[in-house]
Structure formats: C-alpha cells, structure tokens
C-alpha cells in the first residue's frame, strides 16, 4: 500500500483548491491530494465530480475523503456508490474539521502512516488547541 491519498470536498472550489495548496506545502509531493468543489460557477458539491476524484487517486492507495457542510456528506456517500468496488473498498469518509484535519492527515500520510493512523491524526484536530493556555 502506498501513502494515503486525501480528497477534499467543499462547496467552494476555491476553498478546496486553497486547502490542497496549503496541505501540499506541509506534506510534500509524496501524498496525492485532490480538490473537488463548486458546481459550474456556483457553490455546491457534485457526486460525479467526487467520484472522478476518487477514481483519479493512485491505485493501491487508501483514500481519505474530507468534506465541509450540509449536502457535501450526502454527495460523498453517493460518490462512493458510483465508483468501482476496488475504489470504494479503499475509501473512508472522515468526520473531522476540514482545514486542520486535512493538514494533519496530509502530514501523517506523508510519513507513511496507515489509513487508521491518518484518520486518528485528522480527528485529533477537533480538540487541538491552537493557542497555549
């Protein structure tokens, strides 16, 4: 199994692309990062577009799917129904904060951690303090 891939789904194309840019800087080139966002020129998410991003991930890499708000989750679930079995089996929907979670995940993935470890790292972002108390 190669390094875990990270697919970022946002209603905003710019938000998804910006987050990939940021996560890529932290993780380096060894992690496949994909941004999916917007529908045409508007805010929204699209299951076929998410499915395409999943299919575009390196073969044999575990895929971690991050999403923002509302119907993004529904479309992620639907996308998993649209992809072939071998892609679906490697994919996991991650319930974590989008920005900090994706960055944690990308870094953990770049260290060659397993998908379980990468998910745990992403979920730690929920309680991570950004300012020392």
């Amino acid at each position, binding site marked *: 199994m190669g390094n875990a891939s990270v697919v970022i789904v946002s*209603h905003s194309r710019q938000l998804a692309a910006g987050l990939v840019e940021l996560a890529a800087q932290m993780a380096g080139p060894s992690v496949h990062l994909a941004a999916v966002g*917007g*529908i*045409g020129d*508007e*805010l*929204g*998410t*699209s*299951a*076929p*577009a998410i499915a395409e991003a999943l299919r575009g991930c390196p073969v044999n890499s575990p895929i971690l799917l991050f999403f923002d708000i*509302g*119907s993004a989750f*529904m*479309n992620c*679930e*639907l996308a998993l129904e649209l992809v072939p079995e071998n892609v679906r089996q490697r994919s996991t929907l991650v319930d974590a904060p989008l920005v900090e979670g994706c960055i944690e995940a990308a870094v953990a993935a770049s260290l060659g951690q397993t998908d379980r470890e990468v998910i745990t790292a992403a979920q730690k972002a929920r309680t991570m303090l950004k300012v020392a108390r």
Partner: protein
Amino acid sequence: MSFDLETFLSFIQMYAKRLEELQEVLNILDNRIGDGDHGTNMVRGFNFAVRQLHEQPPSDLGSACNTVAMALLAHVGGASGPLYGTVFMKLAGIFQQQTEVDKVTWIKAMEAAKAGIVQRGKAKFGDKTMLDVWEPAVAYLLGAHSGTQHETHSEIQSESQREEACEEWVQEVEVAVLATRDRIAKKGRAAYLGPRSQGTCDPGSVSSGLFFELLSYVYNGGGELIPWETRVL
C-alpha cells in the same frame, strides 16, 4: 394500469415546465427557511435532464431514469441534487431494461425511491423534509394496492374510478405538503432556525407534492392543476 417510457418522458417534461413556473415560489419559501435556491436548482437540474433525454433518447425506462439521475447529480448543488438524484437512481434500479411496467412494479419503484431518500437524507417523518410528503404518498399507494383494489381488477377499473383514485391520492399529497408549514425543521439548513422555521412550507415538500401531482396528471392524460402559489405562500 401500465406506465410506459412515453408517459415517463412527458412527466419529466411537464415537471420541468411546472418547476419553471413555480421557480420563484420555491425560491421564496427556501429564502425564508433555507438558502433560497431550491427553485433555481430544481429548474436547472430538470431542464438539463430534459435536454439530455432529447439529445440521447433512452431505449427503456431504466436508462431514462439514469439519465435524469446523472443530470441532477451533476447540475444541482444543494441537497436536492443527491436526494432527487437518489430517487431516480432507485427508480432506474427497478425499471431497468423495461419499456413498460405494471402497477405492482410501479409502486415497488416508488417504495424503493422513498427508501432511498431515507437512506440518503437520514430524516424521519415529521422533520419537515421531502420525506413528509413521500412517506404518506407511498403509504397511500401501498394501502390502496393491498386493500380492495387488486391488480386483476385494475384491468377492468373504469376510467372514472381510476381518475377518482388519482384525485384522492393527489389530495392526500397536498394535505401532506401543507402540513409541513407548522412543523419545526429538524434536518437541512432550515434546522438552524429551530422554531423560527415554523410558518413556512418546506420547499422540498412542495417540489415533491408537484412531483406526485404531475405523475397523476400524465397518467390520466390531463386534469386540473393545483395552484400551488396560492396554497403554499
């Protein structure tokens, strides 16, 4: 009864047309309790579906439903994209490779579509979502079917009996749509408003009511249309 490809295609066309006429009404409702684009989204999605069906004429009901599903998934950004997309994916699953289905199959398809909405949206009846209309609409079909009317009877069911049954069904559907007005939203963007979501009909329930009304309309080859704008605003 039988439901064929031609009936399905005129249903989609008619639905797209009525959505366009009611676009503002749906947007106004959604503006009060959501993000204001339900009408715009539905019109965009179904107009695209109509165009796709015209450009690549489907050979059977299953592929027609799949074309509509993919058009909605790719062109509707809000929750209605995956939800109505799922409806047509589930219909496609039951209708596959058939150009004409009987009443039993048609009801089974509607039931599968409803189950798909539950699975996708994870709402319960009473949450002020489209399920508040789908649940009683499908329950009526199942009740009417397992009750006094059997499939063998439907063959000899007179036209007036059929029209009467459809009329009663659409009336039930309308009542279900209007009942969402006083409910407090538990799902979707409207849920953020809590008790302030009361007093407005759920836009997804209105578009679902229209869905069933027009299924009945094309099946009967016409009839009176509900003036939704005066009922739901």
